[in-house]
C-alpha cells in the first residue's frame, strides 16, 4: 500500500487480499482481456473506496474494452491469487446483460441488473459504460446511507478536501476534471461522501463523466488527459469519461478533512469571481442538494452543520476554465497558509476487507 503524502489522513490500511509483498505503488494497468475474463467469470470487483462494486456480464464485449479504458488504473483489483476461488467482498453486485428477446439482436440493447432486478431502462448495446456508471451512481446514492452523500465534486490536496456542490449549471464535472488534470486528488465527481462519525470526506473514485461541450473543453485544457471514447445519443447527450489517475486510485481509502466549499457557476462571458458566502447559503447548497440528506434525519442535519462550520465558504462564477482553476489554486494556497495542517484522524469504521475464508 503506497504511503500517503505527508498530512494525508490515513484510514486503517486496507488489508491486502493476497499474503506476500505489498501491492506495487503503480500496479499494471487493467487490460481489456483481463476485464473480459473476469466479467464472464467470477466478476470484476472494482474498489472505489467507499464501496466495492462487482460487475459481471455473459457478453464480454464491448463492455470489457470500455470498462478497461475508464478504470485503467484499477489494475490491482483485477489481481487474483492463483487458486483462490473465493470471490472477494462486494457491496454492489451488477450484471450487464443483453436485451431481452428480439432486442438481443435487433437494435440490440444492454440491461443493468442489481441482485437480479432491473431498475433501469435498457441502453443501446454500445453504451455499456454510460449505463454502468449511471446505474452504479444511482445504486450508491440509494444504498450507502451509512455516510452522508452530498451531490458534489470532491477533491483533495495535502489531506484537505475541496467540495463543489453540483447545482444545475454549475459545470461541476468540468471543473472537477480540470482540477484532476492539474494534480488534485480525485475523491469523486458525483459524491461528497461525509462520514457522520468523523466528519471526514471519503473517496468514491470513479471516472469523471463529461457531457457535450465539456468534453472538448477538457481535451483542450489538458491534451494529455486520459479521456475515454465519446458516447453519442445518450439520455444526457454525448458523454465521455475521464479515467481517475493512478494516484487517486491508490489513495481511495484515505479520507480528507473538509476545508473549502466552493459553489461553482459557469456563466458564458463572465469574469472569474470568487467571493465568500454566508453559512445559510452554504447549508442550503449542501442539504438540499444531497442524495440522502433527508433519509439520514438528525444525522444528516448535524453532519451538514459540521461541514458548514468547519469549511471556508465561497462561491465561484466563471467562464474561463484556466482562470478559474488558477484562482481556486490561489485561494487554496492562501487558506492553507492560514490554517494549521490537519492532524491524522483515523475513521472509526472503515470497509477494510479481509479475505474470504475458504
Amino acid at each position, binding site marked *: 500500500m503506497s504511503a500517503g503524502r505527508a498530512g494525508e489522513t490515513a484510514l486503517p490500511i486496507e488489508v491486502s487480499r493476497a499474503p506476500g509483498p505489498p501491492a506495487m505503488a503503480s500496479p499494471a494497468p487493467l487490460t481489456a482481456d483481463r476485464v473480459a475474463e473476469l466479467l464472464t467469470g467470477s466478476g470484476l470487483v472494482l474498489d472505489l473506496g467507499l464501496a466495492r462494486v462487482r460487475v459481471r456480464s455473459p457478453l464480454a464485449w464491448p463492455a470489457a474494452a470500455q470498462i478497461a479504458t475508464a478504470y485503467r488504473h484499477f489494475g490491482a483489483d483485477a489481481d487474483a491469487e492463483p487458486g483462490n476461488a473465493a470471490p472477494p*467482498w462486494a457491496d454492489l453486485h451488477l450484471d450487464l446483460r443483453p436485451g431481452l428477446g428480439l432486442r438481443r439482436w435487433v437494435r440490440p440493447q444492454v440491461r443493468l441488473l442489481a*441482485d*437480479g432486478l432491473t431498475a433501469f431502462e435498457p441502453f443501446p448495446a454500445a453504451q455499456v459504460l454510460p449505463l454502468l456508471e449511471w446505474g452504479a451512481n444511482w445504486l450508491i446514492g440509494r444504498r450507502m446511507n*451509512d455516510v452522508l452523500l452530498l451531490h458534489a465534486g470532491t477533491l483533495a490536496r495535502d489531506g484537505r478536501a475541496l467540495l463543489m456542490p453540483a447545482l444545475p449549471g454549475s459545470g461541476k464535472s468540468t471543473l472537477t476534471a480540470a482540477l484532476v488534470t492539474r494534480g488534485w486528488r480525485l475523491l469523486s465527481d458525483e459524491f461528497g461522501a461525509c462520514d457522520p462519525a468523523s466528519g471526514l470526506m471519503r473517496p468514491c473514485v470513479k471516472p469523471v463523466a463529461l457531457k457535450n461541450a465539456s468534453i472538448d473543453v477538457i481535451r483542450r485544457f489538458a491534451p494529455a488527459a486520459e479521456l475515454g471514447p465519446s458516447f453519442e445519443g445518450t439520455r444526457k447527450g454525448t458523454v465521455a469519461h475521464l479515467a481517475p489517475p493512478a494516484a487517486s486510485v491508490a489513495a481511495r481509502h484515505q479520507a480528507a478533512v473538509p476545508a473549502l466549499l466552493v459553489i461553482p457557476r459557469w456563466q458564458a462571458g463572465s469574469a472569474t469571481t470568487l467571493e465568500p458566502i454566508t453559512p445559510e447559503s452554504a447549508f442550503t447548497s449542501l442539504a438540499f442538494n444531497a442524495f440522502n440528506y433527508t433519509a439520514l434525519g438528525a444525522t444528516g442535519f448535524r453532519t451538514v452543520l459540521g461541514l458548514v462550520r468547519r469549511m471556508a465558504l465561497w462561491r465561484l462564477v466563471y467562464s474561463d476554465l484556466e482562470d478559474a482553476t488558477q484562482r481556486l489554486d490561489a485561494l487554496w494556497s492562501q487558506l492553507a497558509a492560514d490554517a494549521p495542517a490537519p492532524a491524522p484522524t483515523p475513521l472509526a469504521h472503515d470497509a477494510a*476487507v*479481509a479475505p474470504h475464508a475458504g
Partner: protein
Amino acid sequence: MPAEVRHPPGAQHGLGWLAALREPARCLTWDLSQWEHVIRLSRRLRLLGRLAHAVAQAGLLDAVPPPAARHLLAEQRYATWRCDTLLWALEDGARALAGAPYPVVLLKGSAYIVQGSAIGPGRLPSDVDLLVPRSSLDDAQARLSAAGWTEVALDAHDQRYYREWSHELPPLRHPHHGLELDLHHNILPVVARTRVDAARLIEHMRPVRGSPWHVLQPTDQVLHSAAHLFYDADHGDRVRDIVDIDGLVRQEAADPGFWPALAGRAQELGLQQPLALALHFCRQWLDTPLPPAGTVPLPRLRWHEQHLLVPLFGRVLTPSTLDDEPTLTERCSQQLLLARHHLWRMPPAMLVAHTWNKLRRPR
C-alpha cells in the same frame, strides 16, 4: 457457493437465514461470504431493515464484520426514515379525517407500525392503506382532498375500474411527502370470486391506544395478509408476507383462544385457502409453532392446493438466484399464478373489457 446456515427450516430453499430475524444470535456464525449473500437476498426481499433491527436490538451490531455492518446500519437508517415519513403522513391523514363520523381502519404496514407490533420496525412502507365503510368513501376522499391529497391521474376507464370493480379508490398523493394513500372499502376486490364482507371486519376493529386510528383484530390481520398475498397478481419476492404472518401469529401465541378464533374467522370470511397456504409456508420456512394436529380445525390444503399451488408459490415467493435471470420454470410458474389471479379477480366479461382497454391505450 456460500455455505448455508445448517439445519434451520427453509435451508434448502435458501431461506435458512430467516431464522436470524427471530434469533439474531444465529448470524454470529456467518462468515463474510454468507453475510454478503444474506444482505443481498434480504435487501431484495425488503427484509434487510428487519434483520438490521433484530441484530441491533440484540446488541450484536458490533459483532458483525464491518463490511456487512455498514449495510445493516445504512438500511436501518433508511427504514427509520421511511417509517417516520409514514407516521408523519398519518398525522396529516388524521388531521384531515378528524371528526369523521365513521371508523377509519389502518391496514397492513401502517397498522403494524402504529400499533407498535413486533413486525413494525425495519419495514419500508411505501403507502398508507385505510379502510372505511363503502358508504363513507366519498366523504373520506373529500376530507382528504381538502387537506391536499390529490388523485393520481388516471384515464376514465381506470377510474371506473377502481370505483366499481375494485376494493379501493385510485391512489391519492400528498405533495408534502409523496406517500400514496390507498382508500379501501374492502380488503379484496368486490367482484372477485371470494367476497369478504367488509362490515364484519370493521365490526371487530380495535382502537390503537394513544392514537385516533383503529386496526383490524389480530385474526383479521393474519387473514388479510394471507389473502393479500395469495390472491395478488405478483408474487415475486413476497416471502416477507410469510414473515409477517409468522410474526403476527407468534405475537398472539399466548392467547389460547387465538387459534380457534382464527380457524373460525377463516371459515366465516371464506379465506380458508389463503390461510392454509400461508400456514404451510410459515411452518416450512419459519418453523412457526402451530397447534398440535387435530386440536384446532384449521383449514387443510386440498389436493390441488398441495400439489399445484404450493409448488408454484414455492418457486415464486423467493428468487432461486440473485445472479441470473429467472428460470423458465420460475417464469412459467409466475404466469400460471397470474392467470389464476385474473380469473379469480374478474368475471370473464369484465376481464376482456379491461384487457381490451389496456391494449388500446396509447403507450
